[in-house]
């Protein structure tokens, strides 16, 4: 329809969806086909399933840097986040600690899980961020009261790429005796994160974010922390998440976690930073009146976000798609409501900037030629759209 051949496309929406690594797919396949499916089954295939489940748990725990017994498999990051927040908050409420501290730039799944608790009596404190989206750890400390039952912070921001000082926030949470949940989507394997050494009590992750299968995720829970389950049934996953485990998905997540660790050790993040920085420099030079959102360094290695004045994100994305460039506006929620993203508002973007966010996320198969494609095709589209809206760059 668009006249762009697949080879001519530049896919730069890895945060939206990442292709599953073929090595992951190859390991998953027998689990669909050979009857090795139910770890609770008492026949020999069940035993094999149990072993595979345990092996995957070990690999995920290794990537998180914590105890193997802490890993609970879920249907994705949203479920992990809901289980962490609702599970920990409901358990804390029994101890009359119904206050939750979160930041103003959390993912919508974190915000909505907290808002739902607010409806039944929880109180929330949103910690503000600076102009680059950074949370001041001291502000988290000041927000904590005697009633605080949970702190929830995203390790890295999905819209503007900002990395948070998780170690410091962990220290503050530990000294206050309040459980800390870290939403590690986007961050795990891309920044230093280790639950044990950083004092993280709950960490949620998505398999697809690690080039694993969609529909799979996990929550790491510090052993001993009380969690009220959301999914009731046969008591799988230590009673925290009932339902027969999605074994092909879980095994895929295990392999994906292992690959993420080894690729990071072999310089994958440095490769992404180099490509990303060239893309940033090229775009900012070629497009007048546009700027980076989030910090230039101390940001996710695969993440570039900009705001372009005088054009709407939707128009840019549609036009980019026609020339074979897949990007995003950073926030699906904002796109649905046509209201400015809460993250861009929290970092104090000017009104004329709120309409035009563009987000490029790179990944394992991004090449220098993808960057060239974007640099070649994006600036003319912006100028053309600006002509239509009669916007004159300053």
């Amino acid at each position, binding site marked *: 329809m668009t006249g762009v051949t697949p080879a001519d496309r530049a896919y730069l929406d890895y945060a939206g969806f990442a292709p599953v690594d073929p090595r992951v797919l190859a390991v998953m396949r027998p689990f669909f086909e050979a009857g090795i499916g139910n770890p609770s089954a008492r026949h020999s295939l069940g035993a094999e399933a149990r072993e595979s489940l345990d092996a995957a748990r070990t690999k995920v725990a290794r990537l998180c840097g914590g105890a193997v017994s802490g890993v609970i498999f879920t249907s994705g990051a949203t479920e992990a986040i809901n289980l962490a927040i609702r599970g920990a908050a409901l358990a804390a409420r029994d101890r009359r600690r119904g206050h939750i501290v979160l930041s103003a730039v959390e993912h*919508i799944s974190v*915000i*909505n899980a907290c*808002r*739902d608790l*607010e*409806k039944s009596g929880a109180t929330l404190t949103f910690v503000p961020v600076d102009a680059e989206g950074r949370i001041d750890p001291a502000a988290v400390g000041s927000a904590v009261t005697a009633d605080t039952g949970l702190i929830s912070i995203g390790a890295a921001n999905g819209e503007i790429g900002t990395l948070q000082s998780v170690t410091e926030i962990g220290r503050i949470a530990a000294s206050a005796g309040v459980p800390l949940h870290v939403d590690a989507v986007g961050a795990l394997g891309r920044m230093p994160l280790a639950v044990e050494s950083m004092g993280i009590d709950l960490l949620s992750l998505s398999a697809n974010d690690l080039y694993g299968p969609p529909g799979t995720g996990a929550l790491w829970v510090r052993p001993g922390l009380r969690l009220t389950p959301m999914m009731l049934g046969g008591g799988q996953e230590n009673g925290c998440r009932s339902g027969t485990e999605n074994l092909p998905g879980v095994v895929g997540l295990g392999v994906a976690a292992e690959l993420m660790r080894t690729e990071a050790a072999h310089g994958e993040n440095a490769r992404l930073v180099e490509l990303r920085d060239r893309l940033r420099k090229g775009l900012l030079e070629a497009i007048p009146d546009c700027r980076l959102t989030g910090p230039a360094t101390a940001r996710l290695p695969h993440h570039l976000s900009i705001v372009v004045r005088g054009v709407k994100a939707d128009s840019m994305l549609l036009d980019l798609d026609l020339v074979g460039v897949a990007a995003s506006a950073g926030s699906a*929620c904002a796109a*649905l*409501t*046509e*209201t*400015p993203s809460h993250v861009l508002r929290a970092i104090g973007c000017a009104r004329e900037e709120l309409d035009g966010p563009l987000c490029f996320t790179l990944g394992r198969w991004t090449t220098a030629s993808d960057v060239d494609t974007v640099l070649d095709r994006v600036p003319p589209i912006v100028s053309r759209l600006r002509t239509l809206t009669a916007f004159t760059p300053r």
Partner: protein
Amino acid sequence: MAQAPRVFNPDKQIDCTGLFCPMPIVKTREAIKHMARGQVLEMLSDDPASEADMKSWSQITGNELISIDRDDAVFRFLVRKTG
């Protein structure tokens, strides 16, 4: 239960209780799309964030947010299609 005085008889009502952002706004936008200019929509929501969201949405889209009433946890928004 105190009833807010009904100055406007809404032409259409939607109940978004139990839903969270973005759904109250998505459903409001959808309902407004099928209404005539000048007509009034009543939207109910118990999402604590919907007050700020509705203010921001109506400002951006140019629709008139006539009133916001609150009955316990439930917000009642009246919006006139002017955008």
